[in-house]
Structure formats: structure tokens, C-alpha cells
């Protein structure tokens, strides 16, 4: 009867596929029913033979988790924490295979034995490491024709950061990770093999347990004119540039079992479009390592202190043009709080601040030191995770509950995260097995700091604060009598940090649940089918308050108020977002051996559907002062946005091997994108890769060479990534107001849809070599690649006569080339001491080959700095050029001797001979680093593990907004030139003058002077950014970890099975940098394309703490 039912259901199911929404639950259960129903194989009867024993390593220590299998059957078990195992055999002539990653597999015929103790030897000769590849398929690493990197859970969990990806900086060859200076819940920017997209997305695909999850970032996107809006969501309204984090931060590192990074397109060819920038594959824990129930408790605590790299001048204090804050804010000397162009600081001097009210009339005029440390507090991060796991013959599970409490260094900023992770696997019968995992997280990010902006940004104000402004005075005078900001500077956009701390609020709450469930059915020994359904769902509520720019005030009486008379200032925004992505896939895989040849064929398909809803309401004109609710606002502007997209895919791969040393792998994938127009909707892309383990093909090989493999791969990939939903149709809008009682229609925007858009394509070739030598003491893995990206979809300005302003065209081309190297050395290995050295490094360079045409110099602007300068993509140059005005130089046409000299204006006004800007903006080089890497030294002395990691990024440029301000505000030490010993005016109040070395526009030697304040303010007044362009490179002592495993001191009766304690330090020491006053890593723009534009962000921190891991 049930058979009849499900047979009847099939046609309907098929119909439903083509003509309605796919019911994947029905599909999933149909699969299960068939699988169970078809399981006609008789149950395996156990024979009455039981074998037991202990598995140890070469030193005699037990190895838990060793896989013990009765050869030729699926009957098996694994060793427990003491290395012991017991197995009931099904065959009297059984042979047991003992396998464990990192050890040589051993086969033992049982014969008449009932106790078999086995000692496994480390496997250094053949690297049978298992790598999780695309679609979650596990493969032996030696079969892979492309580069992958594996990350162990310890690398993520012991010495950690709140966004777990940030912990991996410098640890993976070819992977560039940047943490941002935006608070504990900030975004982690990940670039694998550089970035290649001219205008779109560059982040990798994040896959958890085989199914993609969302990694949208919410953040500071001001100035972003690029088309990466799909993956990067900014705040509505101005003055709220905060980093709302990304998708990865919701993952508790304690739940991660392993991670592998698929770097090239070949590795990603089966993941399709979204994997064009590489894939990060995360496998979470799904069963215990020991038989029975295991409990693990992990505690991690770190204390963070901010790093103050400012090295400002302390010779001249607050003021302008040589005059300090004297009489109560009278012209020409109003509140100068953001200017340090005052008189020379001499003992006993005083200044009048805040109108001289109260005790403010007589403030000592002395340089302030360490105001950053004064303002910011110590951050604290505490993570507690308890996990419960079981493991058995049929399956196992892992359940963990974790909590992260993080206090940001900004005094009102905190972040908490609660996670529950459940992973399980169970073999229902001999043929049918299930696996699944569910991850729930609940996050609350309170007051992520406002960064980068002029307004309401604490870092912007602090980094440019006049050097004689005492913070306690600033704090005491934050408010004026009416409750508005008591302005301390005529530069009113630089809001008092203490006012911001109290008045600018934001709350972000996110609930997220993602996971998948899969069923695998072994149709035959050589054939299995798998169905998997995964979903990532989150809801995110955010509210924030902005205040009017300049003279921050919540009063209606303020002349700066934007509100209607009688109502109070402010903008309150409340947003609610819901996101859902479902992935349904199936896989059929066959593996057979024909003599010396092995064959594996896999075919599958995936259906991805994504929906994103946003409700937002913004209100202004408050009825009651200081109450920020939607109800309290008079003007309300609600919006609703819905975005849906889908990708359907079919793919397949075939792997042939010859004697398991020569592998050939071919893949193909076809994607259909809902975002494109019919006829241009699908793209097919193949890949081919080969792996040749030459050490196994030689009849005899040199003794020093343990393992050698050569690999080569070619792949294509296609993507619609830069096209949003609904971009192929023109939509109308209706004006909110009627005209003469009639409706007025329009187009919703003037970007004309281009129905001819087709997926962009990427072609990547890579070769690699892996060597293991000298008994595993030397390991080398080197890769080189060449990646060409064509038909990139870029926004193009079109003729207004077309009726529209812009469209998108398949025009862009870029090329990335690079080398990756991983080197492992064991310089010392004795019974008591081992020194492991690991170097990872990568060189990448990406050039723009074509925009509209291949004409060199053609450019598009993808980002604009909040102060001055842009990021452009320029044909013929490296991606990510920093562009702006430089100093104008004499061209030598009048006087060849003057060629290259700076040109100054020859003003008719006195003291105004300032540097002139170039006639056109010029490019200062690429912001992208060329060299990224690190080296790690790990020392193990009798179980004491000490390791330190040094990492580097070199070869990029940065436009520093902090130094831009330091320069124009007179804080840079450079600005002392001209003040000290300058031509002082006899009247006294003179800032000094400077006679620029150079010529005037007529190539006469410049003799005219300029006031120092004006001279150095050309960064702003003339938009000359040249003086604040720096080498963005750095060398850092990134991590130090000292750990000890106390397990051996625990008695065998102890309930504690293992105890490990590690002391950790992160961001320990800056070894070398080229940019003054800031950490070259302190960026705050989350947007993909806005690179190299530094503007004041929360100072980076050094964290110290410990990690405790206890297993019961």
C-alpha cells in the first residue's frame, strides 16, 4: 500500500517541480521511503567472535578515535579515549583495518586472536590526509589537482577573536584576512588569491557542512559607489556609519571540527558562481571522538587594551594662526578644540575653554598625553562552551552550548552571542545513514561604534583633538544648558565624544538558525545516492539614532535643527530584516576499480533559493524630547523591500586514477540564474585537473624524498554575482503627491535594465608541487596561478539621450597572477623537544585589462573617501588604485633646471603662497597588498607548547584619513617645520610662515611665504592627498600561545580525562610599519571595493588571556 502511494506521488511531485514551488520536504521523505523500502539486503548476522584490544602510537600512548573496520564490510568501530576497542565480527576469517589520520593504516588478520593490540606508526610517506572538497565530498588530498589548505580546530579556537576568521590572519597561504577597527562584532574581510572583481563582490563563499550560508555584511559603506550592494548592506540615513558585522561572526569556534580553504576556481568549480572567489568550508562537530558520552568544557578569556600609535607634536597647543583659546570664544578665536595651531606651549600658560564658564577660565595650557587610553576602556571577552558528545557503532552526536560576552573598548559597546550547535549522524541500517547539524545563534550587538564619518564619530574627534584639550574638561562640558552639545570647536561636525557616548545609540539583535540534514543511501557497494536539504535563516532587528550634523542638539530651539517648529531633533530608524536561503541538492556517486584503474563518477544538482525582506521606518520631529520611538515621531517614512533570487544547477565530475598515483579529474557545472533574462540565463563551465604522485610511480626513489606530487588544473567559472534581482525589467513608480488631483508616474530609476546581460566568466590555470622530505622534516607546497576574469558586469554611464543615465554592461576584464608557498620545517626533533616552523606566503597582483575598452587610463570610481580621494579601477593598472590630487610639479618647459620642483601659487595676497595641486587627479598606486603571509614557530618541550606567529602584508598603499586630519589640524610632527624658527611676526601671535621650496606657475623660484596652518591645510583646501599616502605594509608579532597539557597528571580514576591550559596573546607587537600615528590595519570600511581608504576607526587592541579545555 505504501509503495503504491509513493508511486502515485511521483508524477505529482514532478509536476510540482515544473509548475509550482518545489516541496523539498516531500522530496526528502520520498527519498527516504524509497531508500528504506528498497533495502532488501538481509541484515548482517554477527558471528560469535569478539575481538578487543588497544591502539597506541609509536611511543605507547593510546590513540582515541581510530577507525577499526572489518575488511570488506561496513562493520566497524572506533577506539575510545584510552585507545581501547571491542568489535563483534561477522566473519570468521576477518581482517581488521586500523586507520587514523596521520598514521599509516594497518591491516591485521584476526585468525584465532581475541585480543589484538596495535601500534600505529606516523604516516610520513604517503599523505593520506582527507580533505573536504566541494559539495562536502571527502577526498584523499593526494588525488587533488589543485591547492587547498586545511585548518584545524586548534588554530581557530585556542587563540581566538570574536570573529573567528580574524584568528587566521597569516596562517593560510594565499588568504588575506583583514579585521576592521569597528568593535568586537565587526566584519572580517577575507580575500583568497587577491581580489579580481572590478566593481562587484570579492568575498569567498562560506560553506558549513556542505551547504552555503549567508555572509552578508552590514556596515560602513559611505562613499561606496560600487555594485557590491548585494552582499553589503549599509545603514539608512547619514551619520550612522557603524559596522553591523557579517555572517561568520555568529559561529562559535568551539563548534568547528575542521576547516578547509578551496582557493582556486578548480576547487570551487562544483560550487559554481558564488565560489568564484574561493570557498571556506567549515565542518562542525557531529560526533564524539570517544565511545560513550564525553563532556568538554572550554573557557576562553581575553583582556584587550588599545594600542595607541599616535606620535603627535606636543610643542604647540590648541589654537589657530598662533592664537590660543583666550577670550571667551570671541572672534577671531572661537572654540578651536580641533586645531593645534596655537602658541608654543610654555610653563604656566593657561587657556579659556567653554566660554570660561565655571572653572573653564583657567585651564592649564599643557600637552595632553594618552587621551586614547584615557577615553577607551579595556575590552574583555569571555567565552564558555560546554559540549556533550557521544559516539557509537551506529552513530553519534555533538551538542554544544556556548556563550560569548564581549565588552568593547568603547565604553558603551558590548556584544553577546549565545550559540547552540547540534550535530549528529546515525546509520539507520547497513545502507542508509543520516547526518545533520543545526546551529542556532542569538547575538546582541549594543552600540557598535560610529566610525569614519565626520559626525558623531568618536575616533574622528579623538584622533584630531587639539593636543592641549583635557578630556576631563571635555567630559564635564559635554552638554550646554539646553541639553544640546556644548561646542568645543568651531568644527561642529566633530561632536564631543562624551556627548556621542550618551546620545548616539544603536541596538542590533540577530537570531539565526542554519543547518542541513542529509541522507545517504548505499545502493550498492560502489554506488551511493545522497539528498541534502539545508537552510540558513536569520532575522535581524536594528534600531539607531542619528542626530543632525554639526552642533549636535536634541533641542527644537537650535538654529541647526532640521525639525519643524515645536518638535525635537533627531532621526530614529528601526529596521527589521529577514533572510532565508534554502539549498536542496542530490548526489549520485559511483566508485569502481578496473585493474590498475580506479574510477569515480559523481553527478548532482542543486537548487538555491534566497529571499530577503526588509522593513524599515525612519522617523523625525519628536514630540517628546529625547524619546526615540516610532510613535514619538511626527514624520514617518516607512519602506519595505523584498528581494528574491534562485540558482538551479546541474553538475558532475569524473575522476580516473591509475594505480593511485596518477589522477585525472574532470568536472562540469551548468547554472541557471533567475536574475538574468531568458536566453542569457545559463552558463556552463568545466574544469580539468590532474595529480601525479611521482614518488609512488618510481620503482625506486631517493631516500631523502618521502613524497612528491605535481598538480595542474584548468577551470572556468561563471557568475551573475554582480547583478541584483529584478535588474532586467523596468519598473514604474508613482509620485507620492498627486498633481492637480491626478497620479504622476515615473520610472523607479534611470538605470536602464540591460536584457542582454549574461554571466561573467573566469578562467583559471594553476600548477603546484608538493614535496615531503627527510622523514617528514621538510614539507613544501607551492602553487602558481593565472586567473582571467572576463565579461565582468560593470555600471556604465550612458548617453542621457537614451533617456537614462546608466546601465550595466558585460565589459570588465581583470587578470590575477600569483604564487603561494607553504613551507614546513622541523629543524629539531628529539624525544623531548621539537621545533616546528611553518611559513605561508603569497604574492598576488591583479590588473585591470578592460573597462569599456582596453584604452589605458580609462577608469571607474568605486569608492570615495569621506575627506578627499577615491578608489578607482584604471585600465592598465593594478586593481584598487588610490587616486587624488598630488603636488603640482614643474614640467621644465620654461626652465629645465626646475623640472620636478613643487609649484606654489603666486598670490597677490600676503602669505598665501601655498602648494598647488596637480591639474588632474593622479593615481598613487594600488591599495591591495602584493605580499601576504606569516611564519609560525612552535616549540614543544616535554609537552609545553610555545608558539608564535609573525605575519605580514606588504606592497599596498593607503590613503590615511587620520593623518589627513593630523596634518591639517597641526598634530603631525611634520607640521612643526615652519613654526619652529619661522619668520615670526613681531606682533607676537604669529604661527610662523613657511617659504615653500619650489617655483611659481611661471617657473620662477618661489620666494613668497604661506602661513603654516594654510600651508599644511592644502590637504583639504587644495585636495592634495599626496602627503597622506603611505605604504600600508606591516610586520606584526600576531600571536603568542603557551600551552600545556596536564592530562598526564590526572589519575586514571579522575573524572577529568584531559585538561589543557593555554595562555594566549594576540596582536602582540608591531614589528614594522610605514604609516605614522595609526595601525595600518585599522580600517573601517566593510565594503568590498572601498580598499585603502583609512579613516579614523576604533584603535586596534592587544589581547591577553587564556584558554582552558577540560574533557570529562
Amino acid at each position, binding site marked *: 500500500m505504501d509503495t503504491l502511494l509513493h508511486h502515485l506521488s*511521483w508524477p505529482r*511531485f*514532478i509536476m510540482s*517541480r*515544473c509548475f*509550482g*514551488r518545489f516541496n523539498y520536504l516531500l*522530496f526528502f521523505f*520520498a*527519498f527516504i521511503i*524509497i531508500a528504506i*523500502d528498497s533495502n*532488501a539486503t538481509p541484515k548482517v548476522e554477527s558471528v560469535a567472535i569478539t575481538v578487543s584490544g588497544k591502539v597506541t602510537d609509536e611511543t605507547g600512548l593510546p590513540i582515541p578515535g581510530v577507525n577499526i573496520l572489518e575488511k570488506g564490510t561496513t562493520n566497524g568501530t572506533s577506539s575510545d579515549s584510552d585507545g581501547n576497542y571491542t568489535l563483534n565480527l561477522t566473519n570468521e576469517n576477518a581482517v581488521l583495518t586500523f586507520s587514523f589520520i596521520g598514521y599509516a593504516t594497518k591491516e591485521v588478520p584476526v585468525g584465532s586472536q581475541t585480543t589484538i593490540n596495535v601500534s600505529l606508526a606516523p604516516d610520513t610517506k604517503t599523505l593520506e590526509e582527507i580533505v573536504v572538497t566541494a559539495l562536502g565530498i571527502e577526498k584523499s588530498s593526494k588525488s587533488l589537482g589543485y591547492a587547498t589548505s586545511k585548518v584545524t580546530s586548534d588554530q581557530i579556537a585556542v587563540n581566538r577573536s570574536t570573529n573567528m576568521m580574524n584568528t587566521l590572519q597569516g596562517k593560510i597561504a594565499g588568504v588575506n584576512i583583514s579585521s576592521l577597527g569597528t568593535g568586537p562584532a565587526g566584519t572580517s574581510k577575507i580575500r583568497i588569491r587577491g581580489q579580481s572583481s572590478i566593481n562587484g563582490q570579492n568575498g569567498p563563499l562560506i560553506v558549513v557542512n556542505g551547504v552555503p550560508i549567508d555572509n552578508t555584511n552590514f556596515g560602513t559603506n559611505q562613499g561606496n559607489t560600487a555594485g557590491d550592494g548585494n552582499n553589503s548592506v549599509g545603514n539608512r540615513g547619514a551619520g550612522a556609519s557603524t559596522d553591523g558585522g557579517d555572517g561568520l561572526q555568529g559561529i562559535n569556534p568551539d563548534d568547528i571540527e575542521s576547516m578547509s580553504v578551496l582557493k582556486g576556481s578548480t576547487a570551487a568549480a562544483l560550487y559554481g558562481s558564488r565560489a568564484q572567489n574561493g570557498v571556506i568550508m567549515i565542518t562542525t562537530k557531529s560526533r564524539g571522538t570517544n565511545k560513550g558520552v564525553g563532556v568538554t568544557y572550554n573557557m576562553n578569556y581575553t583582556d584587550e587594551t588599545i594600542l595607541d600609535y599616535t606620535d603627535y607634536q606636543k610643542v604647540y597647543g590648541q589654537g589657530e594662526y598662533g592664537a590660543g583659546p583666550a577670550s571667551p570664544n570671541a572672534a577671531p578665536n572661537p572654540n578651536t578644540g580641533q586645531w593645534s595651531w596655537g602658541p608654543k606651549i610654555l610653563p604656566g600658560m593657561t587657556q579659556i575653554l567653554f566660554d570660561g564658564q565655571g572653572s573653564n577660565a583657567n585651564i592649564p595650557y599643557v600637552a595632553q598625553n594618552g587621551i586614547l587610553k584615557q577615553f577607551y576602556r579595556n575590552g574583555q571577552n569571555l567565552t564558555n562552551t560546554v559540549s556533550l558528545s557521544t559516539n557509537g557503532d551506529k552513530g553519534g552526536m555533538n551538542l554544544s552550548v556556548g556563550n560569548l560576552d564581549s565588552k568593547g573598548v568603547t565604553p558603551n559597546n558590548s556584544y553577546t552571542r549565545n550559540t547552540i550547535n547540534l550535530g549528529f549522524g546515525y546509520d539507520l541500517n547497513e545502507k542508509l545513514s543520516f547526518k545533520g547539524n543545526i546551529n542556532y545563534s542569538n547575538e546582541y550587538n549594543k552600540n557598535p561604534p560610529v566610525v569614519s564619518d565626520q559626525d558623531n564619530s568618536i575616533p574622528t574627534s579623538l584622533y584630531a583633538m587639539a593636543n592641549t584639550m583635557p578630556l576631563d574638561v571635555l567630559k564635564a562640558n559635554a552638554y550646554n544648558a539646553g541639553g544640546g552639545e556644548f561646542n568645543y570647536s568651531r568644527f561642529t561636525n566633530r561632536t564631543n565624544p562624551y556627548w556621542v557616548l550618551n546620545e548616539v545609540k544603536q541596538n542590533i539583535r540577530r537570531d539565526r538558525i542554519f543547518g542541513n540534514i542529509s541522507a545517504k543511501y548505499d*545502493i550498492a557497494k560502489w554506488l551511493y*545516492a545522497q539528498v541534502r536539504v539545508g537552510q540558513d535563516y536569520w532575522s535581524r532587528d536594528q534600531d539607531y539614532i542619528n542626530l543632525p550634523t554639526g552642533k549636535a542638539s536634541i533641542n527644537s530651539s537650535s538654529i541647526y535643527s532640521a525639525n519643524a517648529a515645536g518638535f525635537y531633533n533627531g532621526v530614529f530608524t528601526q529596521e527589521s530584516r529577514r533572510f532565508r536561503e534554502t539549498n536542496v541538492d542530490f548526489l549520485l556517486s559511483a566508485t569502481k576499480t578496473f585493474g590498475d584503474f580506479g574510477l569515480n563518477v559523481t553527478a548532482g*544538482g*542543486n*537548487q538555491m533559493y534566497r529571499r530577503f525582506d526588509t522593513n524599515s521606518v525612519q522617523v523625525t520631529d519628536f514630540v517628546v524630547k529625547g524619546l526615540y520611538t516610532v510613535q514619538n515621531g511626527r514624520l514617518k517614512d516607512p519602506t*519595505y523591500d*523584498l528581494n*528574491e*533570487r534562485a540558482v*538551479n544547477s*546541474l553538475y558532475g565530475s569524473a575522476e580516473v586514477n591509475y594505480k593511485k598515483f596518477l589522477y585525472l579529474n574532470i568536472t562540469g557545472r551548468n547554472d*541557471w540564474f*533567475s*536574475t538574468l533574462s*531568458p536566453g542569457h540565463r*545559463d552558463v556552463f563551465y568545466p574544469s580539468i585537473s590532474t595529480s601525479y604522485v611521482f614518488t609512488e610511480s618510481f620503482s625506486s626513489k631517493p631516500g631523502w624524498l618521502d613524497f612528491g606530487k605535481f598538480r595542474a588544473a584548468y577551470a572556468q567559472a561563471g557568475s551573475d554575482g554582480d547583478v541584483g*534581482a*529584478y535588474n532586467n*525589467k*523596468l*519598473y*514604474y*513608480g*508613482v509620485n507620492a*503627491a498627486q*498633481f*492637480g488631483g*491626478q*497620479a*504622476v*508616474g*515615473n*520610472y*523607479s530609476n*534611470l538605470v*536602464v535594465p540591460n*536584457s*542582454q546581460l549574461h554571466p561573467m566568466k573566469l578562467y583559471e590555470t594553476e600548477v603546484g608541487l608538493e614535496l615531503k622530505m627527510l622523514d617528514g622534516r621538510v614539507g613544501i607546497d607551492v602553487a602558481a596561478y593565472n586567473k582571467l576574469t572576463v565579461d565582468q558586469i560593470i555600471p*556604465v*554611464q*550612458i*548617453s*542621457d*539621450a*537614451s*533617456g*537614462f543615465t546608466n546601465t550595466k554592461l558585460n565589459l570588465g576584464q581583470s587578470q590575477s597572477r600569483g604564487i603561494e608557498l607553504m613551507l614546513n620545517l622541523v629543524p629539531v626533533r628529539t624525544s623531548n623537544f621539537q621545533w616546528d616552523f611553518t611559513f605561508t606566503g603569497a604574492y598576488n597582483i591583479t590588473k585591470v585589462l578592460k573597462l569599456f575598452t582596453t584604452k589605458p587610463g580609462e577608469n571607474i570610481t568605486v569608492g570615495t573617501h569621506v575627506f578627499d580621494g577615491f578608489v578607482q579601477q584604471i585600465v592598465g593598472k593594478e586593481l584598487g588604485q588610490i587616486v587624488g590630487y598630488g603636488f603640482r610639479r614643474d614640467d621644465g618647459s620654461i626652465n629645465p633646471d626646475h623640472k620636478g620642483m613643487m609649484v606654489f601659487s603666486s598670490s597677490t595676497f600676503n602669505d598665501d603662497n601655498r602648494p598647488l595641486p596637480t591639474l588632474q587627479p593622479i593615481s598613487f598606486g594600488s591599495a591591495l597588498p602584493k605580499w601576504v603571509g606569516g611564519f609560525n614557530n612552535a616549540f614543544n618541550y616535554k609537552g609545553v607548547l610555545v608558539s608564535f606567529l609573525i605575519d605580514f602584508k606588504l606592497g599596498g598603499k593607503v590613503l590615511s584619513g587620520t593623518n589627513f586630519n593630523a596634518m591639517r589640524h597641526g598634530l603631525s610632527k611634520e607640521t612643526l617645520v615652519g613654526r619652529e624658527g619661522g619668520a615670526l611676526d613681531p606682533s607676537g601671535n604669529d604661527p610662523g610662515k613657511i617659504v615653500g621650496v619650489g617655483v611659481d606657475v611661471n617657473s620662477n623660484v618661489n620666494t613668497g611665504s604661506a602661513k603654516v596652518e594654510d600651508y599644511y591645510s592644502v590637504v583639504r583646501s587644495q585636495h592634495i592627498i599626496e602627503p597622506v599616502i603611505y605604504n600600508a605594509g606591516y610586520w606584526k608579532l600576531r600571536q603568542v600561545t603557551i600551552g600545556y597539557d596536564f592530562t598526564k597528571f590526572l589519575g586514571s580514576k579522575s573524572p577529568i580525562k584531559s585538561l589543557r591550559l593555554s595562555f594566549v596573546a594576540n596582536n602582540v607587537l608591531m614589528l614594522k610599519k610605514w604609516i605614522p600615528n595609526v595601525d595600518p590595519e585599522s580600517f573601517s570600511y566593510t565594503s568590498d571595493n572601498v580598499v585603502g581608504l583609512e579613516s579614523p576607526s576604533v584603535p586596534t587592541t592587544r589581547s591577553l588571556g587564556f584558554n582552558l579545555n577540560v574533557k570529562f
Partner: protein
Amino acid sequence: MKKIINYLLLSISLVLMISCDKGFDELNTSKTGVISLDPAFVLNNAIINSFSSAVGTSTLTYEMPIVQQMFSSNTGVLFGGNFNQTSFSNTVLNWTNYFQNSINYSSDVISRTKNDAKRTNLYNMARIIKANAFMILTQTYGDVPYSEAATGYTNNNFFPKYDTQQSIYADIIKELTEASGALDPSGTIETSDVLYSGNIVKWKKLGYSLLLRAGMRLTKADPTTAQATVVAAFAGGVMISNADNAIIKYDANFGNGIGTTLTGTEAANFHLAQPFVDFLKNSSDPRLAAIAVRYVGAKSGADQAAQITAGTGDKTAANQYGLPVGSTDGNANGAGGSLPGGGTQFAFTQADRTRVVKKTSPMFIVTAGQTNLLLAEAAFLGWIPGGFVAASNYFAAGVTAHMNQMASYDPGSAIAAADITAYFAIPANQLTVGTELKQIGEQYWVASFLHGPEAWANFRRTGYPALTPNPSSGSEVPGGFINRLSYPPSEILVNSTNVQAAISVQGPDNLATKMWLFK
């Protein structure tokens, strides 16, 4: 066997599940966006943008300073026509506004109603609106994209070619002739029409009046076509009564472009130009008192505002003083000081922001005043019957219609019948043998006050009024008048092949090059 069937079914369904991209069209259609909108609503947008705020800014910064009706001495954002110089931010305004709005939206309506037998009236209304927009565009820039214009969505033509002004005019005449003829009062009435509330008879008159305008525009370039066109338009029936005027009745939400600027941040910086004030003053024209106001002794915008609040602005015609053409802030301030009552530049006469250039002031696209004056010229030329008598009647009717039009701006601008009678009692104000074209041209200039593109076009065609070239020192057309505006820099950048082809035919892309119509 059962197993095999199962697997087969499973496999087939899996393949179907994936390869089927059905539903993608629906999925990729926004549930919150409007896919189809009644084209009548879209036409309303085209109508409103027949004179948008951008065109208002262009009128203030180029057309009216060129024809010396309004003037700013400001060298900042307002510079352009006042100093005979190119200011790209202002020269592009007509281009972007008409292509992106009036032409784009009327083209949308045309393409969606072309084959709809029920909406032929809407189709023809849209053709008329589009023709009006193109007349303004081509008389601003000369050769412009026409045949391929506004096909960015329909044909994915992002870089349209340019057509010659001659061919554009030929097609405009064809379009206006066909559309006006095809409008059918017994057909579907478009009740949501914001121009005439669906009154097809009035639409017909608008179509023929624009045809008359197009025909007269050709008197210099192609007199034969001009005459034939004028005859056809006259026969079709043009607007001769103010009741037929094409008026965009702006409101608080859709502000009058000129009024918005003149009541906004630039309120204090525009003045009536001396030649315009003097012309009206010298002819005892009652329209001066209807249009003008002077804030005697004002030294700042705040002083002006105070007088507005107090209601003390001087509207007496005799007390009006226009700002000398070519004034800069410096000499205008000095000149203001020597006015009766003193002050600075802010003491010169302005168009009254409380009456004719309010934010909610109506904009007159085509008026009976203008049409009567064109008929006077046609009668004078002998293209329509009646000779001088008819010409002088049309002339008087045109001037009278414009005087009566003043009341539409504001009750405070209404001109009493007695004042009109008194005006015509002066012999010099009647059409006089020997000075017909001069008088008609001067009156057309006054009747087109605030409609900068029309005033400028007729000035270039007829040479009237005979104005003295702007003496500004930085003039890009020394000793002359601006003949056209430059193409937008974006065209030079992105549509370079086509625009360069046009430049090679028409002449250098500057303010001096004369276009075919006015050679």
C-alpha cells in the same frame, strides 16, 4: 523491477527539478515594483516636465540673461549666461531634463499606445508633448539625438546617433501635423490628463499652435516650408483665447522651477535686467507693475525679506530700476548705492516673488498671447489672409491676451481693462507700418517672459528686441550673443563618436556656433 522504477523516477525527477528554470521570470519580477502603469499617468510626468525645475534654472542662468530679462551679478553657482560663459553644470540642464523626463516619458507612452486603438488620443497627446520638448532641445543645442533618442530601454540603444536640426524639424512638423489631425474628440477621453483634463479640442489647438510655432521658427532657415506649415496650422485652428493656454499649474509639491529658485537660497540674487525694465517703463506698459517689485534701500537678502514681510516692496512702475547687463557683484553694489533710496545690488528691481514667481506660480508653455503675435507676423508676411489690418488686430489681441494672463499668476498682478485701454491709446503701442516685425518681436519677447527657451529662440530668429551685447569681460562670444549651449561633457565622454560626428557637421561645440535654424 520495483527498485529500478523507483530509481528511474527519482533520477528523472531530479533532472527535472534542476533543469527546469520555469518560474524564474516570475521570481525575478519584483513583488513590490510596479510593472505596468496607466500610460496616462506617465504622460502627466512628461507634461509637468515640459518645464521642470532644471529648465527653470537653465532659464535663470542662460536664457533670460541672454535675452536680458533677468540677471544675476553672482559669479558663483549662478554664473553662465550672465557673463556669456560656459558653466557645464547649467548648460546641461535642458539636455538632461528633456531627455530623461519629457522625452523619455512621452516616448514610453508612445511606444505603449501606438498599437492601442482605444488610446489614440493619448498616443497623439504624447506625440505633441514630445515634439514640444524636442523643439526646445534642438533650439538649445542644434543637432541632437532624435530618431534614436529615448530608446535605451526599448532597443537597448545606449549611445544614440545625432540627427541634423533640419531633419529633426521636418519630423517635428510631421508629428505635430499628424497628431493634431488625428486627435478625435469622439474618441477615448483621457480624464487623468493634467493639462486639459481630457479636452481634446484644446489639445488640438495646442498641437496646431505648436505647429504654428514650428513653422514660424523656420522663416529664416526654410521660408517655403515655414509658409506651408503656418498655413496648415492656421487652417487646423490655433489657440487665440487665454482659455486655451497650455498651463502647468504648479503646486506646493510640484513647484514652479523658476519660482522655487527665486523663493529659495538664490532669492536675493536675481534682478530684472535693465533693458527689460526700461522697455516696459518707456512704453508705459502696465505689465511692469504686475511683474516687478523693488526693495528700496535694501543692502541684503535679509533686508529684502524684511520688506516682503512688512509688505513695503515698491511696485510702482516708475520706481523700478533694472540691473545693468554685465554687472558683477562689485559694480552692482556700487550701482545700487546710487539708486533712489540707496542700498546695494539688492535694491534693484526683482520679479515679484509674492506674485509672478511664487513657488506655486503657473508656467505657460504655449499661450494665446504668443500665438496671436505669431499670427500677426504671418498676416504681415501675407501667409494668412487679412494684410496689415489683420496683423494689427492679432498684434493687439496678443498683447491684450498676455496682459490678461497676468491675473493667472496672482490677483495682485491682474491688469485692469482700463489700463489696457490706456496703453493702446498711446499710438506708439499700436502696430505701426514700417516697424511691424520689430514691434511684434519685442512683444513676443515680453509675452514669453519666464519661458526662457521660447524668448531666446524668437530673439535669435527675428533679431528683436534689438539688444546691446553683454559687455562682460570674460565673454566667450565677444561682442555678440550666445547662439547655442554646449553639449554636456558626459556626451563628449561616453557618446563621443556620435557627438563628434555632429560637431563636424554643425561646427565647433561652443556658445558661438550658429545653428541651422538661425544662421
